């Protein structure tokens, strides 16, 4: 009886995990080999869906866009780290700023999309108005390619900066004060100290942030779906393409093949991620 206790405690969680994560993971590989419409019977087509993928321009475009979005990661990291360092330096003044930087993070992405779609609007948008103040021509934020990808990057930066600032602050908190103080006594200035002492000590957090934010970029859906709904599919991302194929065209087999590609892309990042967590 006593030996059964841990198994009973684990049972509900494992049941959910098996049914709603591990089983679907297996199914996705199986589905990707089928010609499977949501409504009709399915038939085995082997690598057929993948052959179709290789020859599908929209697949390559959306894949490229998802990768392109990763490019904003270094920018986010620089901004977030700078904010974290500044906020930490001025502890008392920094507190309310932390709060403010955090508002974009907790805001649901659909709302973020609503906000930015209006800011990006071509004729009456705030952004083009600000550009006009500098006598710059209006930009087609919501329609032109690859401007649309830049628009999504701007939103990612706006929303991500505060989030990763928090992560950096948590990473900074575990650096022993003495290490930094010792370098101060040795006569290092703040900038020197930051570059030579603090940032190298922050390496695990930097890796973590890089992994998390680039994985998030590859999985991007909601921002694209809500901000540039009118743009052609080739301007969008891999997950939007997956959604379109599976839930607008009801082609589950083809959608699953896209999901397999997405999985292979994220698994490399996630693997590194878990390793990091174990070592923490």
């Amino acid at each position, binding site marked *: 009886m006593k*030996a059964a206790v*841990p198994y009973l*405690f*684990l049972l*509900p*969680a*494992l049941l*959910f*995990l098996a*049914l*709603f*994560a591990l*089983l*679907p*993971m297996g199914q*996705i590989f199986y589905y990707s080999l089928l010609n499977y419409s*949501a409504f009709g019977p399915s038939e085995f087509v082997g690598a057929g869906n993948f052959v179709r993928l290789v020859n599908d321009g929209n697949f390559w475009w959306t894949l490229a866009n998802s990768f392109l979005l990763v490019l904003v990661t270094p920018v986010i990291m620089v901004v977030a780290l700078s904010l974290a360092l*500044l906020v930490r*330096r001025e502890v008392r003044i920094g507190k309310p*700023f932390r709060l*403010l930087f955090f*508002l974009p*993070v*907790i805001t*649901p992405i*659909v*709302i973020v999309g*609503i*906000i930015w779609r*209006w*800011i990006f609007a071509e004729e*009456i948008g*705030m952004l083009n*108005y600000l550009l006009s103040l500098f006598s710059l021509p209006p930009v087609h934020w919501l329609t032109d390619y690859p401007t649309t990808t830049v628009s999504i990057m701007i939103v990612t930066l*706006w929303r991500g900066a505060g989030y990763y600032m928090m*992560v950096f602050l948590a990473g900074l908190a575990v650096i022993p004060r003495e290490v930094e103080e010792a370098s101060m006594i040795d006569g290092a200035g703040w900038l020197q100290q930051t570059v030579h002492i603090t940032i190298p000590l922050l390496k695990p957090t930097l890796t*973590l942030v890089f992994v*998390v934010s680039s*994985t998030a970029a590859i*999985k991007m859906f*909601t921002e694209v*779906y*809500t901000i540039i*709904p009118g743009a052609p599919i080739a301007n969008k991302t891999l*997950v939007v393409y*997956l*959604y379109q194929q*599976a*839930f607008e065209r009801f082609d589950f087999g083809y*959608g*699953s093949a896209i*999901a*397999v590609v*997405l*999985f292979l892309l*994220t698994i490399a990042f*996630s*693997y590194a991620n*878990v390793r990091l*967590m174990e070592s923490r």
Partner: protein
Amino acid sequence: MTYAMKRAIIILTLSLAAAVAIGPFVWLISTSLKGSEELFAFPPTLIPHDLALENYTGVWNAVPFQTYLFNSVIVVLGTLVFNLTFCSLAGFALARYEFRGRAFVFLLVLAGIMIPKEVIIIPLYANVLKMQLADTLAGVVLPFAVDALGIFMMRQAFMAIPREIEEAATVDGVSPLRLWWNVMLPMTRPTLAALAIFTFIGTWGDFLWPLVVLKSREHFTLQVGLSYLIGAFSDNYRYVAAGAVLAAIPVLLVFLGMQKYFERGIFAGATK
């Protein structure tokens, strides 16, 4: 450079960044309060002339906003109860019991953490269809009711509790369930709160999955309802803005109320 000057520069930089962070919200609120002519005014006005509160009543009456809100609350509460209960039970077992297969179970949990939901939505939806849960709130809740990362977090929290406390309680002869609920669980409160917060933020803001599962309007969550609002009122952005403001309020309240647990919760969420 003097100390005061350096400080002034830092504060200026932070203020500028804060303006960028907050500006879009100000613009949203401003839009939500504008009259119809002012909406298209160029140059845009930041402070509306006549504070048109009718956008709020308008959107409240135009779409079943209360229903959306109610559905979102049900989904969040359901997910919270499942996730906190089952993750802490499983985390407790993994942290405090020696049993056959423990390493394997832990491996399954790690595998669960590595599976992105975007990857599995197609089979999940196929299964939800077979289980007759399509277009129901249960269909939204159940597939994401237990988060593998939550199990991991709770395991870490239970592992940090000193052995002596557990031993003292066991000598008194408490049952395992009581030991978990009365003795151990209260000691993991900070982690539990962190898990609750990021479950709340994640579930409240979740969009892709409810969008896939829910088909009829009376079952929409707030986020799905809002996304349809964009389409339905694309020429009346004041309504959309007012709806967005209303939908943001609950998150803001939770955020302000539970601030001190937030950093922990967000850091845990970052590893997802």
